[in-house]
């Protein structure tokens, strides 16, 4: 298609109207790039359409442009010219200004330093306060512990001083002759207080088991194992005993205890001085 035929087809008028498809628009655009006479035809079509459409407008709209600019927040078109005064002004202003700046800067630095110092002081005080708090807590714990210990001691003392208390010393046996223990038997409450301070630490996996014995015939009754031997501080254990015991023995048994005492591992044994 020659350019003249292209023009005559009426496609350029539709191009200006915006009635073509996107693909057609691009095709026209590419052809315009290569053919200046086609472009000038487009410009003429455009000019006539602009005039026709503008003629329909009842008022001239040009005066509205400032409003558009204002709506867009654009600057005024006419830039204000600020005259530059080249004569040096009174130097006093300059010097005073500089002096003020230096003073201000100095003041700011001083303030900043003050602030930093104060902040670090506050931090130190806070740290100290925290330490004090921790120390106070430790102290409180110790006091409460001591109170508990005192109570226990007083209780023990009252047990030992009780005139009805039956005291049974248990002597070390062949397996560990240095061992000893004491049993305080409170028959009113059916409790025995076993002082096992004189027993060695049981090896791992073993526990002491306490037995109540009758002598004729020799019959052991299990009073239980002492599982908390290692952790208990005063090594005094309260065990309930409602038996008519004539003697007490302590054996070393595997963890969990045994049904009958392992006599080869008898650590301590003691009989009541006089049968009740």
């Amino acid at each position, binding site marked *: 298609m020659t350019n003249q035929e292209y023009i*005559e*087809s*009426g*496609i350029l*008028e*539709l*191009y*200006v*109207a*915006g*009635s*073509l*498809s*996107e693909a057609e*628009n*691009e095709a026209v*655009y590419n052809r315009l790039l290569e053919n200046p006479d086609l472009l000038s035809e*487009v*410009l*003429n*079509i*455009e*000019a*006539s*359409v*602009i*005039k*026709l*459409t*503008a*003629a*329909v*407008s*009842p*008022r*001239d*709209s*040009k005066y*509205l*442009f400032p*409003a*558009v*600019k204002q*709506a*867009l927040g*654009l*600057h005024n*078109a006419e830039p204000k010219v600020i005259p530059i005064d080249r004569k040096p002004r009174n130097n006093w202003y300059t010097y005073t200004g500089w002096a003020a700046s230096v003073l201000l800067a100095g003041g700011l630095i001083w303030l900043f330093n003050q602030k930093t110092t104060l902040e670090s002081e506050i931090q130190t005080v806070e740290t100290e306060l925290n330490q004090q708090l921790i120390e106070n807590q430790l102290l409180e714990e110790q006091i409460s512990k001591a109170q508990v210990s005192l109570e226990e001691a007083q209780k023990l003392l009252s047990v030992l001083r009780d005139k009805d208390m039956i005291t049974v010393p248990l002597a070390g046996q062949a397996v560990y002759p240095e061992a000893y223990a004491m049993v305080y038997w409170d028959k009113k409450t059916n409790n025995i207080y076993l002082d096992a301070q004189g027993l060695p630490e049981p090896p791992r996996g073993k526990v002491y088991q306490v037995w109540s014995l009758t002598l004729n015939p020799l019959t052991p009754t299990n009073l239980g194992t002492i599982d908390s031997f290692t952790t208990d501080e005063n090594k005094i254990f309260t065990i309930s005993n409602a038996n008519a015991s004539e003697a007490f023995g302590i054996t070393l048994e595997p963890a969990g205890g045994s049904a009958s005492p392992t006599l080869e591992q008898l650590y301590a044994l003691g009989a009541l001085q006089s049968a009740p």
Partner: protein
Amino acid sequence: MQLDLLVSRFQERDEKAFETLYDMYSNSMHGVIYNIVRDCDIAEEVMQDVFIKAWHNADSYSAKKGRFFTWLINIARNAAIDKTRSKAFKNSKKNLQAEFFVDILENQDNLNSQTDAIGIQKFVKKLAKKCIEVIELLYFKGYTQKEASETLDMPVGTIKTRNRNCIKELRTMLDVN
């Protein structure tokens, strides 16, 4: 200044270029919008919005897609049609006269001082109805050639040549050749 240079400056947010383009197209846009909303003040308001929109969306214009004027007139038509669909507009203007742009031109006493206006008025009086319809649909209403062909019930090819001849007449009248 070359138009494409002006447009690319505008796209770079050059205010001077923006003003030049505004001067070139604002009355045209106002005419197109006025033909749709038929209220001079509302048309001015919409026209300003069109240029504000154009400034904000300047980047979305690409010469490949068409003429800058075409891009702008498209925004204007859409904005005007949107306006006529708004509730406030419907309440104030219940009946839009179903008139063509020529009726405005014929009834306009105070045509703005453009020298061409008188020529256009003459042209419009001489213009055949077939031209009025085609120009109304394609330029003022933004119909595609297919839509225009369906509305006027004639083949696309006929629309194309008829429109070409009508614009040719207009150009002769305005001496734009």
